[in-house]
């Protein structure tokens, strides 16, 4: 069984956010981590490796430094790593990104593709389903549980007020929720091996069956009109009352003033 996990290097949003003058993200200026949902997806794949001896390949698209998350994945136990990097792929929206990753996946063998539900930088949850669409395979999003039985996979699919147990024949694509599992740590031996491991690097020319017009900033149907740090409504009053009684009369006063009570 072969599993490909798509992972993304994302800026750690706790470290603050920086932009280029054109409104796109300045990823180089921020701390980088493996996206949490993707990490859960990787863990799910590694459990299939533990259970069934599945071969796990990790795939990412990004700047050359995105190889850091591939090495982290190798240190956790992934078998192979592929980095797709090329200047012409920069500035891609979800359409262009999913087109690119689908172009890379056409070169790989897979029974199962796992992506995170969404990345913490864009929060779109679009790339997984869009990859599946480009490849013509079924997608099951929001996976809370994944079980494999021969050529079939059963997924507990989360909805707002329910879940569905869904079964499908592989190949298919699953998007993983962080609550799927607790990802394992890298092992010292794994880190040692990962440092020396070969990472396959592909550029535009290695993508299969994709048109230039669907790649990068030019191939992105969505365009940024404006990007900015969020302007919040700002703080109102803050009081430090001397006693709980003072606090209560302050709150009750405000509730009366606003005609709440």
């Amino acid at each position: 069984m072969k599993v490909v996990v798509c992972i993304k290097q994302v800026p750690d949003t706790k470290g603050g956010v920086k932009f280029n003058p054109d409104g796109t993200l300045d990823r180089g200026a921020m701390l980088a981590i493996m996206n949490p949902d993707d990490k859960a997806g990787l863990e799910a794949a590694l459990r299939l490796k533990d259970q069934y001896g599945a071969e796990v390949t990790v795939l990412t698209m990004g700047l050359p430094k995105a190889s850091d998350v591939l090495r982290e994945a190798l240190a956790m136990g992934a078998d192979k790593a592929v980095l797709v990097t090329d200047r012409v792929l920069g500035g891609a929206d979800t359409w262009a990104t999913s087109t690119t990753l689908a172009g890379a996946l056409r070169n790989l063998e897979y029974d199962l593709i796992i992506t995170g539900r969404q990345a913490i930088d864009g929060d779109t949850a679009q790339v997984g389903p869009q990859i599946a669409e480009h490849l013509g395979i079924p997608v099951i999003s929001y996976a809370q549980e994944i079980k494999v039985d021969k050529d079939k996979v059963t997924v507990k699919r989360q909805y707002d007020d329910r879940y569905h147990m869904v079964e499908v024949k592989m190949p298919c694509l699953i998007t993983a929720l962080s609550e799927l599992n607790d990802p394992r740590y890298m092992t010292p031996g794994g880190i040692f091996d990962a440092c020396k491991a070969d990472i396959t690097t592909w550029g535009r020319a290695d993508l299969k069956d994709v048109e230039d017009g669907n790649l990068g900033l030019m191939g992105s149907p969505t365009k940024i009109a404006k990007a900015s740090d969020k302007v919040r409504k700002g703080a109102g009053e803050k009081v430090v009352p001397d006693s709980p009684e003072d606090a209560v009369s302050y709150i009750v006063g405000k509730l009366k003033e606003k005609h709440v009570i």
Partner: protein
Amino acid sequence: MNMSPETIAQYKGVYVFAQQVDNEVSGIAYELLGKARELAEPLKTDVTAVLIGSGVKDLADKLAEYGADKVIVVDDPELKDYRTEPYAHALASVINEYKPEIMLVGATAIGRDLGPTVSARVATGLTADCTVLDIGDFPLQPIPGKENEQLHNQLLMTRPAFGGNTIATIACPYNRPQMATVRPGVMQKIEPKKGAKAEVIEYNPGFTKNNRYVEIKEVVKAVSDIKDIMDAKILVSGGRGVGSPENFKILEDLAAAIGGQVSCSRAVVDSGWKPKEMQVGQTGKTVRPNVYFAIGISGAIQHVAGMEESDIIIAINKDEDAPIFDVADFGIVGDLNKIVPKLTEEVKAAIAAK
């Protein structure tokens, strides 16, 4: 990728995916219709709801009351419970057949799967989790010397990113439809017009099973009598600072006294103290009550993203530097265990005295 201006000109009308679950229209469908009415005005066009399901035709009148001029009904036994493939086929077929200029979908656990699949199928852009939608120009300002290249009547889609740290306004100028998913609880429904009727169009593109049809083995609904926190006028929301699941009692008492409901932060759900349906925030629900009490909630940006549109925010926290005070209208630094029970008594007394 880009469509020609002639092709773009063929796309007309504001369309809404009218999500239904168990043949009951989801609230987000009405909210989208409310927004669609606003967008249709400057475009001088009409509003169409796309209703997909099995045995759902009767719901068309409800959609008319909430602002749909037309309802396209795709009704087929394959569409009973939501599955990506037959639903994506239904919606993509409607788009290809009727050519809407705008297609709005709720950013629900259904819409965030259906939207991307359909946008990829019809080869257009999709902006996720929008909080503001407007009609305007792209680029926003004309480029000197290229004034005639500025496009008008574009859908401008504004969304938070980076966990709410930033906002971006996105356009989809050279492809149609312009697609957006919209967070539930953000847009306003209109006051329903009793007895309003829409033109109902029945359309079935035909459903042939293929490799992409998954099989639903089991549907497990959450059993719950909890009222939806998104409908509450007053929310008494607790965070990790409440200390224990038992101590939520003091919040429940306050909520009962003031006629509100209890909600909570993600930390509370992650600790297993309260169910996920009570969670406010980016991975929970977006709420905009008249009054939001944030009690023992530090105010992580992901939480704030889900409640900052509340009319009045009252925060009680013992940590003077808690970020919740940056968005609170009224912040009280103090011990919630001492303040909240007394507040409940005073609120009761004040209401009794009226």
